[in-house]
């Protein structure tokens, strides 16, 4: 503008000068020209003055802008608000500086809010470099979990501290879902669940922004405990079901085993009552009734014994019992039953001399009787039952071996269960209530002894009872 004014002034002056040369004698022209020159000189001076003022103002504004830029840089570096201390130097741009100051404080508030959220979060927050997974920032929870200072963590690769089960590379390529991993802290291994924040780059590549890690050690332990308990409960339920089945099976067997002697008793007594038998036949019927009465008594006593042995052991008096004589007597008593089933009893390994144990005579008879009856009952036709009794240090060992059907491995674990009864293949009927071995085990427990079973299907079974010897 100033240049245009100057050019116009010079040009109009030059035109006036040309006009004056054509008529230099004209007084009016001369006066006009003189005044014109004065006025143009004044205008030129005013224009030059204004130009100088503008240059000075421009320099001043430049200085103020430099001050503001410097202040903004300081703020960006997190130095405390330099703008608030320099309002004097910013008379012209003061309002703008104030606006920047307000904006700065607002941003600081937001920053503080997120900082507090970041640092006080119980979950572990990591800000990661987009490539290379180096840690840019980490919150207090993460540093505390590692037992390290923040400075020791920043700039380090995340995989140095956090091991993800599927690895960082795969976790970064998949993202989104929760990934399990672990951190090794001063207090031991911490199990974590990580979620990785990913951002797609313009080139289609996935950049990692950060990761949130949650300590799931306690939850994991609880989960495992719950799982164990759940498994145990399932097992218990199965056992209950199995016991229920055994109970049903037992009740059916009980019904059968108690009814069978009763059928004979009732039938023969009915014949006797109706006078359909007399003399020798009548006597024979009475014998049958008596025998069946004995069977009933035995079954009922076995049931009662099992209940008593399970709950009150103190009522049985203990005394020295010659087991050698007891076993021989019981074996001889069962010779007839064995012969009926064509089973041979081998007593050659029974000692002639006394072999004493501290025990209850009646219960030991029951023990030997049950083992022998089972060995005969589950034997093959023309099979053998071998009895052996020997002293082994402070103990007396009784072995009852049969050459019968044997017991498979699965059933071996349950044969001492109450009401279990071996189910021989293809056999629909078995005598007894299935409490024999359970009773044997209770009697062995009563004598603080031990019972062991060895068996091979098709080859036979051996029961070994160990009892404490006495003088």
């Amino acid at each position: 503008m100033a240049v245009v004014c100057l050019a116009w002034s010079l040009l109009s002056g030059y035109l006036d000068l040309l006009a004056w040369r054509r008529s230099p004698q004209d007084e009016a022209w001369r006066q006009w020209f003189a005044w014109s020159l004065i006025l143009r000189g004044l205008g030129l001076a005013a224009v030059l003055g204004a130009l100088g003022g503008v240059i000075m103002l421009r320099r001043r504004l430049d200085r103020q802008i430099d001050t503001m830029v410097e202040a903004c840089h300081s703020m960006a570096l997190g130095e405390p608000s330099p703008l608030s201390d320099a309002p004097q130097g910013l008379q012209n741009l003061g309002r703008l500086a104030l606006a920047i100051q307000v904006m700065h404080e607002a941003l600081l508030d937001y920053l503080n809010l997120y900082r507090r959220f970041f640092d006080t979060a119980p979950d572990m927050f990591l800000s990661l470099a987009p490539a290379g997974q180096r840690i840019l920032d980490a919150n207090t929870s993460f540093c505390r979990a590692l037992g390290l200072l923040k400075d020791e963590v920043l700039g380090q690769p995340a995989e140095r501290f956090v091991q993800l089960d599927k690895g960082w590379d795969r976790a970064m390529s998949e993202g989104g879902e929760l990934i399990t991993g672990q951190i090794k802290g001063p207090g031991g291994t911490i199990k974590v669940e990580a979620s990785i924040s990913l951002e797609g780059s313009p080139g289609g590549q996935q950049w990692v922004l950060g990761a949130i890690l949650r300590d799931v050690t306690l939850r994991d332990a609880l989960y495992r405990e719950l799982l164990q308990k759940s498994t145990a409960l399932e097992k218990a339920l199965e056992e209950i079901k199995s016991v229920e089945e055994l109970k049903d099976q037992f009740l059916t067997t009980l019904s059968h085993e108690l009814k069978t002697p009763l059928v004979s008793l009732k039938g023969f007594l009915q014949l006797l009552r109706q006078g359909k038998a007399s003399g020798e036949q009548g006597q024979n019927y009475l014998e049958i009734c008596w025998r069946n009465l004995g069977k009933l008594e035995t079954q009922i006593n076995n049931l009662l014994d099992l209940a008593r042995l399970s709950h009150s052991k103190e009522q049985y008096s203990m005394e020295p019992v010659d087991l050698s004589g007891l076993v021989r007597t019981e074996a001889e008593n069962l010779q007839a039953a064995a012969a009926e089933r064509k089973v041979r009893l081998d007593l050659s390994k029974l000692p002639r001399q006394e072999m004493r144990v501290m025990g209850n005579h009646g219960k030991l008879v029951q023990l030997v009787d049950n083992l022998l009856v089972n060995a005969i009952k589950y034997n093959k036709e023309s099979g053998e039952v071998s009895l052996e009794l020997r002293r082994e240090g402070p103990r007396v060992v009784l072995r009852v071996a049969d050459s019968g059907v044997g017991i498979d491995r699965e059933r071996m674990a349950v044969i001492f269960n109450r009401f279990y009864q071996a189910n021989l293949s293809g056999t629909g009927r078995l005598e007894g209530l299935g409490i024999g071995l359970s009773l044997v085990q209770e009697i062995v427990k009563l004598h603080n002894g031990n019972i062991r079973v060895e068996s091979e299907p098709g080859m036979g079974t051996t029961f070994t009872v160990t009892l404490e010897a006495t003088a």
Partner: protein
Amino acid sequence: MSHPLILLVEDDTDIAALYGDVLRGEGMDVVLCRSRRQARDWWQTAPRQPDLVILDVRLPDGNGLDLCCELGEMGSGQPHPPVLVLSAHGDPRMPVLCKQAGASEFMDKMEGIDGFLDNIYKLLQ
């Protein structure tokens, strides 16, 4: 007129003796078998079919109901004699199972001699 022939399949010695004596007392001929196998063997070689079969459910080598099915199959399409199934089993499903196996009648052994004979005469008719 020949006496009715009864095939009695019962493994319990005393019960077999009881029913055998009762049937013989009524003038019937009784063939006693102690197991499923024994009954099957007798059936295949018997000079004539029995007029009535009495089966116990629990036998040492199998189930009386299975034997009932087998007797039907061994008859080569001919109707087999009536079958009375006896049991001291407490299972309430037993009458239905017996019918399914082709038995004519089921009787609980606890019914006694009179009930037994009633069933025998009913089935022989």
